[in-house]
């Protein structure tokens, strides 16, 4: 009997098919290929939901799946690894599949309004790109080994290049596309070393064990755990150190794709792409891929205290760092771009600090509210005739109520205001970081607390920049003629906004851990989802469950929770109140500064910090300098060296020989037939010499 799991490859294959159809037949279709994309992503969504229901045990068959389906490269020799593609479905996969296909579907629908209705050209290319993007991300999500994950990770990078650079006739987008690919490629370089290293170390890249006819094929996180237990050595390093090295190498790719410091610089530039693409990149595909990868192989990261500390610190720092830059931006999408960087920082913080559920929770809620905010921004941009400057807006609240109310829902979620989705997830991230920071001994605990402090501080900035954006865009008086008479948007824009707007208000319900802990009601559904049943089922077979991760965290890096203020409940209330208070503080400050009829800039009050922030801490400048000020001159120097010295020697040798051999001028005729004759002659001479000599010897 064919179950949902037999159709999992089709979840990615459908959008891939849409890519082909849109590319070759899109120009003959009325919506230029959007039909194929919408049908395919709708199909993916249905299959994903079916998969999730099956994982939940509602169809009565197996609740997990992990199979190798395709042998990409068969290693013939004993010592040659075999490289395969396969599908892994566990609760994490199922959740992510639903998120990605849902967002992709909504983005496709929204694109009808944003691209088709606006009379864009090149739409088959656009929809082909969206299809390939979705397909790559979905295949990445259900990859059952790290090489396959890398391969689709790279395809995701290609698609971002194609879509960010969609408007190739202008100068900005191709440049931004190049930057996006190059910066993430730099991260992927380390990732690839990590992949090669993992295969070289374990002979497999499986995330979870596969039951094959020939026996169980173990996963690499499990093998790493065993190796550490038995204190093996690899390539001259102790197991513990080596796992940290491998983990950090893979993390390079995560930092690049998830736009974490210092490889975040591509993301704000990527706003050059069409806004629906930004929604897709930020909410569900490219940027989410990095964090998802850490969650996918959490059983490996949980083995290395150093890697956990690095993840937590990068996350906490990025959350704060990006939030401060979001404060001074003039353009709507720029604010959102920095908020994305910052929010993914929170997820990294949670993963590093042992808050696996919190990270996945925030990944889920963020996907909803960030897609909403970008699509809302897209709606505003249509209305504003593609002017993105918030200072040219104002007063849009009454003219576009659907956009306003949904955008507000997303903003409240982003700022972390109770009871919107972002509050629950961000609160859990901070709570987990706090209790593990207090409970874990030594440097690791201190690192967690430092990361926590940065994350907590960022809450204030988040509340501030989010509502600065809301007030400048929608409140006050309209500041330009366009804002006074904005272009109306159609159902294809409003419908996705409505779906997501409701989502942003309610998705938090899936894991109201604080309420659960205060009342004893078992409503932490996500927690249960990721934990699995006590006995039997996928946790025992795959070891990708929360319970296993908590054991690892406890046993290897000794990450444990402790409650600094009273018991668990008091700590919980204080932590939640603290972050909510800071968020409200930010919102209120934004309201007092910008929530007026005629707002003015207050950035001058920042003094010297203003220049620093508007220039993004000169991060871009320093990276451009690395590329253009260091690498290019180095390349030129190498070229000079090559022309002058290396080739100079060659030419020198030939002219010297020409000079000394000038009496052989007659045979240096430059006619090749002479050379050929000469060559043959010398060959014959050599032969003769060799026969004579050979005979003697």
């Amino acid at each position, binding site marked *: 009997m064919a179950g949902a799991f037999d159709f999992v490859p089709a979840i990615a294959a459908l959008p891939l098919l849409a890519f082909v159809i849109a590319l070759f037949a899109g120009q003959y279709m009325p919506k230029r290929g959007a039909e194929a994309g919408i049908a395919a992503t709708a199909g993916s969504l249905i299959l994903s939901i079916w998969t999730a229901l099956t994982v939940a045990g509602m169809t009565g068959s197996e609740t997990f799946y992990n199979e190798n389906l395709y042998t990409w490269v068969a290693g013939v020799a004993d*010592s040659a690894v075999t490289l395969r593609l396969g599908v892994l479905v566990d609760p994490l996969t199922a959740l992510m599949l639903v998120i990605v296909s849902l967002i992709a579907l909504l983005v496709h629908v929204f694109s009808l309004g944003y691209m088709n209705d606006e009379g864009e050209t090149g739409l088959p290319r656009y929809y082909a790109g969206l299809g390939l993007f979705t397909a790559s991300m979905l295949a990445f999500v259900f990859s059952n080994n790290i090489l396959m994950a890398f391969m689709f990770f790279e395809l995701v990078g290609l698609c971002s290049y194609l879509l960010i650079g969609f408007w190739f006739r202008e100068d900005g987008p191709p440049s931004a596309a190049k930057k996006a690919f190059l910066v993430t490629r730099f991260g992927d370089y380390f990732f690839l070393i990590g992949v090669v290293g993992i295969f070289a170390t374990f002979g497999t890249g499986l995330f979870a064990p596969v039951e094959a006819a020939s026996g169980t094929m173990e996963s690499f996180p499990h093998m790493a755990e065993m190796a550490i237990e038995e204190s093996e050595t690899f390539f001259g390093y102790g197991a513990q150190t080596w796992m940290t090295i491998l983990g950090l190498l893979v993390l390079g790719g995560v930092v690049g794709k998830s736009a974490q410091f210092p490889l975040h610089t591509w993301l704000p530039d990527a706003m050059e792409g069409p806004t629906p693409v930004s929604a897709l990149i930020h909410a569900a595909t490219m940027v989410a891929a990095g964090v998802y990868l850490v969650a996918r192989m959490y059983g490996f990261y949980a083995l290395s205290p150093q890697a956990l500390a690095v993840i937590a610190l990068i996350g906490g720092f990025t959350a704060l760092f990006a939030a401060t830059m979001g404060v001074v931006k003039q353009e709507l999408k720029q604010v959102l771009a920095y908020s994305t960087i910052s929010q993914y920082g929170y997820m990294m913080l949670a993963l590093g600090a042992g808050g696996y559920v919190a990270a996945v929770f925030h990944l889920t809620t963020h996907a909803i509210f960030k897609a909403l905010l970008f699509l809302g921004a897209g709606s505003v941009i249509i209305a504003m005739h593609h002017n993105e400057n918030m200072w040219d807006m104002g007063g849009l609240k009454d003219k576009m109520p659907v956009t306003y109310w949904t955008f507000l829902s997303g903003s409240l979620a982003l700022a972390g205001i109770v009871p919107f989705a972002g509050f629950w997830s961000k609160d859990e991230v901070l709570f987990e970081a706090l209790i593990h920071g207090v409970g874990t001994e030594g440097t690791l605990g201190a690192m967690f607390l430092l990361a926590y402090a940065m994350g907590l501080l960022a809450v204030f900035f988040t509340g501030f920049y989010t509502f600065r954006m809301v007030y400048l865009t929608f409140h006050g008086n309209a500041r330009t003629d366009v804002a006074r008479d904005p272009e109306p948007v159609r159902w294809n824009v409003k419908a996705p906004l409505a779906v997501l707007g409701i989502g942003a208000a309610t998705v938090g319900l899936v894991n109201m851990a604080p309420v659960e802990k205060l009342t004893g009601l078992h409503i932490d559904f996500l927690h249960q989802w990721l934990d699995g049943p006590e006995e039997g089922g996928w946790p025992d077979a795959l070891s990708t469950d929360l319970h296993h991760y908590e054991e690892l965290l406890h046993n290897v890096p000794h990450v444990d929770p402790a409650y600094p203020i009273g018991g668990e409940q008091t700590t919980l209330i204080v932590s939640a109140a603290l972050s909510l208070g800071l968020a409200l503080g930010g919102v209120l400050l934004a309201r007092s500064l910008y929530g007026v009829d005629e707002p003015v800039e207050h950035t001058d009050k920042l003094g010297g910090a203003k220049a620093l922030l508007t220039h993004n801490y000169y991060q871009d400048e320093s990276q451009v300098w690395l590329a253009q000020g260091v*690498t290019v001159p180095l390349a030129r120097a190498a070229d000079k060296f090559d022309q002058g010295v290396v080739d100079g020697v060659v030419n020198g040798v030939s002219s010297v020989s020409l000079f000394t051999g000038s009496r052989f001028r007659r045979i240096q005729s430059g006619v090749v037939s002479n050379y050929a004759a000469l060559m043959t002659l010398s060959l014959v001479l050599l032969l003769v010499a060799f026969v004579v000599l050979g005979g003697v010897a």
Partner: protein
Amino acid sequence: MPIAGPVEALLGVTLLGAFLVFLAPDEYAGKLATAVSLVPVAVSVWMYSVFDGAGNALLGGTLAFESDLGWVSLGRYDLAWQVGLDGISMPLLLLATVLTTLALVSSWTPIDERESQFYGLMLLMEASLIGVFTALDFFLWLVFWEAVLIPMYFLIGVWGGPRRKYAAIKFFVYTNVATLVMFVGFMALVFGLGDSISTFGMAEIAQALREGGNLSTLAGLAPADLRLVAFTLMFAGFAVKVPVFPVHTWLPDAHVEAPTPVSVMLAGVLLKMGTYALLRFNFTMLRETAEANAGIIVAFGVLSVIYGAMLALAQQDLKRIVAYSSISSMGYVILGLVAFTPHGFGGATFQMIAHGLISGLMFMTVGVIYNETHTRMVGDISGIADRMPWAVGIFVAAAFGYMGLPFMAGFAAEYLIFQGAFASTVIPAAPLVTAVGMFGIVVVAGYLLWAMQRTLFGEYSLATDYDVSRAPVHDVAPLVVLLALVIVLGVRPGLVYRMIQDAVNPLLHGGVVLW
């Protein structure tokens, strides 16, 4: 054994075709040559489909399509007409025949003078290349090896750019001197082996050398020193062809001056002669010497990767960019070979095929753009994506192929090389050295993305006085074929990787000695 096996048929048809084309009128030469070249394509595809070779040709494997006929006796050595294929040479033979046909089609637009001679020489070169990849007797092989140079010299020297004379002579003299150096090295081995061999069969020599102990002292050199000297001379000789830093400088000159289809053959197939010979001679016959000196060899490989990529970064001429990047890509082959692991050897051989297709594709695409714009300088062209969408689309795809995008052949090759090299026990500090070499994948993205941004995108402008329009179908068709091949091999590397592995594994295990 029949006198004319498939290999002889291939050679015969191609040579005969070459002479026919020489005699044909210019108007028909291109079409005729293309039609003729389809025969070797068909024959080699058939050979691939019925290929039944097993093991390594030099190490006692079963050859496919073997002929071994006495030829001449020279002193106490018998020279033989000995040809055959194993899993290493079969894919290379396919590469040579397929790429030749595509290069011939891509010549229709740019070649407009002395066509019959041009196409005749191209076929002559194809025949020589077929010989290089099938000959298994050293002298026979050497004749083909040298015979490749003559048509190449004329193709660059007559149909090339402004500095074609200089480039052609440089190419010819440089590679010829290299052959001489290699020849001396090889002969030293033959002398050293003395009575232990009675033919120039590469298999006989390889097995005599691998058994060890057969080498006698020659010219005061103990056997171990003799091996080292021979290895060094042969490596130096073949390195020129590959090319490996620092003996690469003939390459950019030759590429820049050569007409596009000739560049396609040069980068696509001729460079592989060097790595093929390195694999057959240095790494098969003198395995211990290669292993003992892995540190130095890998340094040349990694240096070529990074140095070639840095040079590519400094170029303004699209063709020069691709030319230098070939140095980088071929450096990976060295890295793979010297690892002495299954995926190292296999990946290196696969990279010969993958790079042959991808660099051919890149050069052709640059050629198609040149046909329309009459310039290749990055600063002269901008925003042509609108005017020639399909050609530009393929350019983008090819560039990503060059950058090693998964599911394209280049990724499979490079990944296997990295996998093989990382786990090598022969390369000192293998993980670190491999990681350094891998940095090439970042630099390659840098220069190709930069070049694309400048030339393909942005506002349309052109410094030369031509009207850019869609490229003709026969210009784009070979690109589509190549791109399809690159993707097919990227999705299913096993199509050739299976036979490659079968042929390279005996290099590690010592092989089966059948006689």
